[in-house]
């Protein structure tokens, strides 16, 4: 095997018109995406959206049927998996059960023809980085889920791959451990300066880990934006829904003014200061996050972004209380932080929901 000499860190990954079909089934289509050197990007989407297929095409485990994968300015189509010099963390970690932790970590170095003495030193160094020193001689079966994940991570970074690929890396961990590992992984990626691509279906995880988030649906990219922007400014109804915006109201544009764009929904007049300039009569959807809504007891005067209704049901979620308000045009849900809850909304009582014009998003579709 030809030795892999390229040790540059943080390669740029460019996908151009990337696609994969199985017969007539186009699992991934026309994906155009550039991941800058050292950037952490999350591929986010529901299961079956093509995100894992995209990741596996970058790795070379699946051949694309259209388009190109360009790493470090060079197309890797036709380059076999083992010559791409990538690191990958698998959902089930894929540790070799017959090898010790150290031997697992050493595998990639061995494949690169690194001298024996150096292998041991570098493997132990990688294990220290993931805070697993002292576990070198254990077998994978003797490790906890978190320790296995760390071993797999050490194994993927030890030979300084050009790109680190993570496939649902935290899926098998419990919530507390997951949060801990997410913060650690973020710090480690920043320290190593690795270009990192994370596949996940968890929007919170994507926001915590990634510089930029690419939302996929039905095999296509729907929106690619920095984490903050994708949270506050989802471009489409699907992205908004997936990012946890549960209030989606169909609206018609009634006119623009200096104050913002006026829109008419069923039973509510809305005003948005963050909408693009749409012509009068355009059909659109407004998206309001439950946590952007303020609830007040009693009726209100008719004014934009205010709606009065009857409390239909409530759900206590710990940090927040979800309140469903039935109004004449439909239903709207608010999440009130429990810490700010003065009066418990009782079912059947009249309340008014309101939200700022700056948080009234207008999305396509």
């Amino acid at each position, binding site marked *: 095997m030809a030795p892999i000499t390229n040790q540059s860190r943080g390669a740029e990954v460019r996908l151009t018109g990337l696609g994969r079909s199985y017969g007539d089934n186009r699992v991934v289509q026309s994906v155009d995406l550039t991941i800058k050197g050292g950037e952490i990007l999350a591929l986010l989407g529901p299961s079956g959206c093509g995100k894992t297929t995209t990741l596996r095409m970058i790795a070379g485990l699946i051949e694309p049927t259209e388009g190109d994968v360009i790493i470090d300015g060079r197309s890797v189509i036709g380059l*076999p*998996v*083992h010559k791409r010099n990538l690191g*990958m963390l*698998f959902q089930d970690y894929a540790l070799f059960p017959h090898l010790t932790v150290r031997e697992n970590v050493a*595998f990639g170095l061995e*494949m690169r023809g690194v001298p024996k003495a150096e292998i041991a030193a570098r493997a132990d160094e990688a294990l220290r980085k993931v805070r697993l020193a002292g576990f070198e001689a254990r077998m994978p079966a003797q490790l906890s889920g978190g320790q296995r994940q760390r071993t797999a991570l050490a*194994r993927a970074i030890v*030979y300084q791959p050009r790109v680190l*690929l993570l496939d649902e890396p935290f899926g098998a961990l419990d919530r507390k451990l997951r949060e801990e590992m997410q913060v650690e992984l973020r710090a480690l990626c920043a320290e190593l300066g690795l270009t990192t691509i994370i596949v996940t279906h968890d929007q919170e995880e994507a926001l915590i880990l990634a510089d930029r988030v690419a939302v996929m649906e039905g095999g296509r990219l729907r929106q690619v934006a920095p984490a903050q922007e994708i949270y506050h400014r989802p471009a489409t109804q699907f992205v908004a829904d997936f990012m946890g915006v549960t209030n989606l109201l169909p609206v018609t544009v009634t006119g623009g003014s200096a104050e913002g764009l006026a829109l008419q929904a069923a039973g509510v007049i809305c005003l948005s200061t963050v909408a693009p300039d749409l012509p009068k009569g355009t059909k659109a959807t407004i998206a309001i996050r439950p946590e952007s809504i303020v609830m007040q007891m009693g009726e209100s005067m008719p004014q934009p972004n205010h709606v009065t209704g009857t409390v239909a049901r409530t759900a206590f979620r710990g940090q927040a209380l979800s309140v469903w308000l039935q109004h004449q045009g439909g239903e709207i849900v608010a999440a009130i932080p429990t810490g700010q809850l003065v009066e418990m909304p009782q079912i059947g009582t009249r309340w008014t929901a309101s939200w700022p014009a700056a948080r009234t998003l207008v999305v396509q579709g």
Partner: protein
Amino acid sequence: MNDDISPVLKICVWVLLALVVAPLVVPVLMSVSDTPFITFPPQGFTTEWYGKVLTDAEAQGTFLFSLKLAGVVTLISLILGVPCAAGLVRYDLPGQGLILGLILSPLIVPLIVIGVALLQTFAMLGSRATFAQLVIGHTVVCLPYVIRTVSGSFVLVNRSLEDAASVMGASPLTVARRVVWPQVRPGICAGGIFAFIVSFDDYPISMWLADGRNFPVPLFLHSMIERSFDPSIAAMAALMIFFALLLVLMIEKAFGISLARLIS
């Protein structure tokens, strides 16, 4: 170990085991009988019959021949069976069911029919290569055992380990050697030992294909029964039982746990 197994099931298992093992105990007991003819229950105790069998030149010759035959058959069964099993598990081939059905058919068709069919075929071809004929006949019968156990071990192979290895820079050959082989080795060894035992113990195929110079142990045993009826026959049968038992213990010792996974 498993306290939650129902007592009814336990009894069934023990009864079944007794039914399987009891007939094997009989010749072992008869082989130590201190009488000039076979009796059951045995009278007295002697190891004289074992001595007689083990020093008999004819018996030694036939034993060595059976070893050679079973060895060659095992080798060929593995060479044919391992790639076949791997292919059947790993690829979606047209006519896969048909291929598997054909390979496993010797388990269903009576062996004596296979033997006579092979004899007629070889006769038609005018073949006189008795050893090769025996090898072919035994391989036909042993192949299903190899395919069964080996394909079982390929089904259990964790494919993401292979993906992980190749991403880390392992060439396909290295992946096969370092990742696939350790996972399928128990199945291949077990398949080989099964093939060896099946070939070593075969009577119905050999009966049609053997001749005076190519004479396996089971045929020799049968001819001895026709000639005389002293306990040396039982001693010989007991030796065959011990030999098979030894082989099974060897695989159990080497891969006990992984085999349990394979069968379940």
